[in-house]
């Protein structure tokens, strides 16, 4: 009966609020001990999924399994889950120690016992010196540690985090991000983390789940979601890609030739060319850092593709320089040039250049 493992399975889960379908038939498996990030814009249903796993919301249909057991209808404690709320929801009238010990007090543990356990947990998140403070006297980062300690004291198998970093300023966010990952390794339990920040998701997660309008668009390892997005939505949400609308001209063996606005005869390798037909409309993705810029047409091999473009704006980003071209058709066209390389012979705004990439680097989206 008792849940011993923190693997989560969502099977055909959907949730309606009146006429609005917040979660629309989601199937997903999160392995035990994984760090999983739900990523998507506000209103995409990611928080609703989290709250359904936590037991603060019941699904309209479908099953939620934790450790192989259907937990729909069970209270949070019986699910062995714990939630960290968006604004932390620390009890304002209780000291840090009493906040952390709350779950033990509920279980009827004596004051001395629960303070001993709570103090050990405070030490684990390195806030022993704050034990007697009230939440109102803590900084955002300290509050987050208290919230983490309070949630972890029940020894959950799954920790659910609702936008845990959104209340922090930029620098602290990056610092606490590392802290979260450290805690997850330390506790060795499943973390499910909801965010709308793509950088946060790919920096933290073993599994990134990209959502749109109640549906999962892609669930994969962080690197796959970023480098091999499944469709235009995922590519644009994660960023770092140029996505051109094209038409298939011909299909031959392991590759297809496409053309679009301002470009023609572009060769793209495909894994299963059988599913693509001539005349079909497709999306072509090329990573911004896979494109090279030249003043004159380069003499490269046949497996290089190139298009002409005019530079519209240049933004210095530190590690690289963001060169923004005039739109190709209606899509943005951006190239990331490594900083040192750019300043060897800097380009100017208004200059006409040739952008080229190796055919193997282009990706045909679903």
């Amino acid at each position, binding site marked *: 009966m008792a849940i011993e493992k923190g693997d989560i399975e969502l099977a055909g889960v959907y949730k309606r609020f009146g006429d609005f379908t917040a979660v629309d038939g989601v199937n997903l498996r999160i392995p035990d001990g994984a760090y999983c990030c739900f990523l998507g814009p506000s209103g995409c249903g990611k928080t609703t999924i989290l709250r359904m796993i*936590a037991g*603060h919301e019941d699904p309209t249909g479908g099953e939620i399994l934790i450790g192989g057991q259907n937990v729909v209808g069970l*209270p*949070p*404690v019986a699910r062995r*889950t*714990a*939630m960290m*709320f*968006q*604004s932390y*929801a*620390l*009890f*304002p*009238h*209780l*000291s840090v120690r*009493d906040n952390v010990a*709350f*779950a033990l*007090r*509920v*279980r009827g543990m004596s004051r001395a016992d629960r303070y001993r356990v709570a103090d050990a947990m405070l030490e684990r998140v390195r806030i022993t010196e704050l034990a*007697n*403070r*009230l939440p109102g006297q803590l900084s955002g980062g300290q509050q987050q540690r208290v919230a983490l300690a*309070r*949630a972890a004291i*029940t020894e959950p198998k799954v920790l659910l985090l609702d936008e845990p970093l959104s209340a922090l300023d930029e620098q602290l966010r990056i610092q606490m991000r590392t802290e979260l990952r450290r805690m997850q390794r330390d506790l060795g339990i499943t973390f499910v983390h909801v965010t709308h920040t793509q950088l946060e998701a790919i920096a933290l997660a073993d599994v990134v789940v990209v959502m749109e309008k109640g549906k999962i668009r892609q669930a994969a390892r962080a690197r796959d979601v970023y480098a091999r997005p499944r469709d235009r939505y995922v590519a644009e949400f994660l960023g770092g890609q140029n996505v051109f609308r094209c038409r298939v001209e011909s299909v031959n063996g392991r590759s297809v030739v496409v053309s679009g606005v301002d470009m023609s005869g572009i060769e793209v390798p495909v894994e299963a060319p059988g599913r693509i037909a001539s005349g079909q409309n497709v999306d072509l993705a090329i990573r911004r850092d896979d494109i090279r810029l030249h003043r004159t047409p380069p003499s490269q091999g046949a497996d290089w593709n190139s298009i002409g473009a005019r530079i519209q704006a240049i933004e210095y980003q530190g590690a690289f320089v963001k060169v923004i071209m005039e739109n190709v058709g209606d899509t943005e066209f951006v190239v990331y040039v490594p900083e040192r390389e750019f300043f060897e012979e800097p380009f100017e705004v208004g200059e006409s250049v040739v952008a080229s990439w190796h055919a193997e680097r282009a990706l045909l989206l679903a």
Partner: protein
Amino acid sequence: MNGTQVVEGARRAPARARVRSHDDERRRPWTFWVLATVFVAYVLALYGPMLCIYVLSLQDIRGGLVFPMKGLSLHWFVDLFTQVRTGDVKGGFERSITLALVVTVLTVVGSFLAGLGFRARFRGDGIVFYVMVGSLVAPGLVLGIGIGLLFQYLGIEPHWYTSALGAHLSWTLPFGVLVMFAVLSRFDSAWEEAARDLGASHWQTIRWVVIPVLAPGLVAVALFGFTLSYDEFARTLQTSGSLNTLPLEIWSMTLNVTSPSLYALGTVTTIASFVIIGASLGVIAWLQRRRARRLPAN
């Protein structure tokens, strides 16, 4: 080029603002003096008459109802509590305090529960709300007469602890609920959810989270309930039955007592009010200190 100018302009602007505000401190605008005069006049009009009563209550045995002062003593305070002809002040005071305490408890409990209830929408919640506000808006005297008539019609003898209690609640409960709305608007329901997440039952959540967080607001509701009941007159007039509450006693004294003991009574009730307000503030301060006690002593 343009960009630099904009940046410099932005940097200059706060400096200019600072100079202007410095001028403000030295030369106040004429509107300041107008408003200050109105405020002083208001305070004088508010406290002047009351001060006259307190001063005149301290006369000696030759004292009358108007200035000038004749002597200085506590004669009329002694007179107030020893002379039967001045009325049943002691009894009225006891009844009013008892009634106000009962009203306070019922108001706090009722407003707290109603406040929690109104957080979720339910069928007919709008109607319940308007009916409630209606009893706040209805003229107190008419409401009191209505309750008196109803008791007479039903053949029940009106008493200060039955009909008057109901009349007071018709005034303090809606007030308390409105205060609770304001208090609850700052209550984050994520606290309750967090408690539930940590395994707390409904009752544990109420007892260890909701009530402690709302405690200062509940003290405010109690204070409102007490003071509104303690000096309630219009609704009590036709509902208190044969025995008077303190406001009714004072009112009847104004009709037949013509000595400064009337003023002495005014002074005593004012002191009682201040004691009660002081005690309430003391409770709030005690609650805050109890919280702060857990803090390190640095």
